[in-house]
């Protein structure tokens, strides 16, 4: 990939709409959304339930084709499933016959990664996400939050240049979630990965991101883009106490309130 392209947007969503048709009804999930994500940028996406956030991530990964508009990823147009990414689905989607560790290593096997290296990294991630002791447990022997952490490890294993995450921490308790936030932020800083994170936690969206995209109720259009003006290295408690943090979360809360028809 050329240097020019490197400098261009990592993810470019250009005037994209998505309509789902079934026998019963037609649903427009996304309407003329445009969005550029710079290389190494961390973008959070928030919006009302059912507005089209998961749909947006699937578009970027090429798992779904837009009804109109184009998506560009790492310099080339997305025309089918892309694997130059890491994707955490909203559901854990684990293979029920593989242990936690082997579910994580699936990523390595599919990509033909060096297995010793992959194993080392898997163990690191298991350690980091607090799954030690459950490496050999089958998915049905894991709690909901543990399953989600396995899926997270799987998406991080190959150190993707672009990371798409669909509520990766939804099933975690508040404190584990904070730990994971801190870890994710560290990983992001250290690797320069481009991240698109769909989340329901406003605090999380602000703490982690450079920018927060607020989507409206379905059909989703971009309601507002909040630039997060926080230092690169963010201590969790200190960040929460900052006025920029408070103002950003308040603003998002307002926007979402409007979007969900509350207020």
């Amino acid at each position, binding site marked *: 990939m050329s240097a020019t392209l490197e400098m261009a947007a990592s993810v470019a969503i250009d005037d994209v709409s998505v309509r789902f048709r079934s026998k019963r009804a037609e649903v427009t999930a996304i309407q003329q959304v445009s969005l550029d994500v710079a290389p190494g940028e961390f973008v959070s996406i928030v919006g009302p339930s059912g507005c089209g956030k998961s749909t947006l991530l699937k578009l970027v990964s090429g798992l779904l084709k837009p009804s109109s508009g184009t998506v560009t990823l790492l310099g080339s147009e997305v025309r089918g499933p*892309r694997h130059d990414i890491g994707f955490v689905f909203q559901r854990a*989607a684990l293979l*029920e016959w593989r242990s936690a560790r082997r579910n994580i290593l699936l990523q390595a096997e599919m990509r033909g990664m060096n297995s010793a290296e992959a194993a080392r990294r898997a163990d690191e991630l298991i350690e980091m996400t607090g799954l030690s002791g459950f490496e050999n447990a*089958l998915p049905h022997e894991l709690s909901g939050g543990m399953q989600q952490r396995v899926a997270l490890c799987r998406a991080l294993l190959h150190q993707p240049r672009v990371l798409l995450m669909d509520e990766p921490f939804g099933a975690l308790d508040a404190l584990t979630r904070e730990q994971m936030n801190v870890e994710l932020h560290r990983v992001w800083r250290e690797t320069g990965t481009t991240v698109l994170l769909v989340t329901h936690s406003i605090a999380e969206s602000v703490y982690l991101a450079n920018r927060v995209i607020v989507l409206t109720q379905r059909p989703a259009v971009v309601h507002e883009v909040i630039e997060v003006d926080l230092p690169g290295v963010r201590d969790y408690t200190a960040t929460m106490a900052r006025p920029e943090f408070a103002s950003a979360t308040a603003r998002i809360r307002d926007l979402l309130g409007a979007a969900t028809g509350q207020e």
Partner: protein
Amino acid sequence: MDKVRTDPWRGLVERSWRPAALLAACLAVWHLITATGLVEAYLVPSPAKTFGLLADKWSYLWGHTWVTTYETVLGFVIAGVLGVLVAVAMVYSRTVESTAYPILLFAQVIPKIAIAPLFVVWLGFGFEPKVVVAVLMAFFPVVISTVTGLKSVDTEMLELAATMGGGPVKTFVKIRFPAALPHLFAGLKVAVTLAVTGAVVGEFVGSNEGLGYVILQANGNMDTPMLFAGLIVISVVGVLLFLLLDLAEKLLLPWHASRRGAAVTTLLAKG
């Protein structure tokens, strides 16, 4: 939770007493209906006579049993491998699916015994035509269940595989095929019993050995003890092969819900 079972003998006894009791009951009924003359000896021989013959002619039957077992296993293995391959081709290609389906169906529906003479003429009196008939009989259930299994895999898992970029081969090996295994085993279990029938039918049409030969000849002579002895041996072969598959399934798919299911059923049944 439930206690972990530590005594392997108790487990064996628990699992076997019911089939054993059933077997005993069957033998008792068989004895009674023949002893009381309810069913005549030219139709159904007494168990004593049948087992006596089995013991007497054991070495004779043994040789024929090997022949039939060999044909069955060969036919089953070929049908299994071919069936899975065809199913995979059908799932991955619309063209193959819509062209292969009618052929398969056709091959399946035709009564093998009606076309078996063709095989004899083409393939002679050796074991080949029997294996062909066994393959033809066993093939279809393998294809149907593998296709169903491969198509039943969770679409989200396939999406996941696509984002990992392993390509169709790895996706198949690591995700689709393991996910289809429970279906596949259901198909294989049906297939193995049909392979036995296929081998025997093949032997009916033209052969000088095998249990089909023994049975048909016994039928011609109205030698019912020999007929029943042959049927018993065939059943034992079929049941053993089936149990082997069942064991393989248990070893390969300890994760499958149909195995885990039992615990939950028991639990729920107590509610």
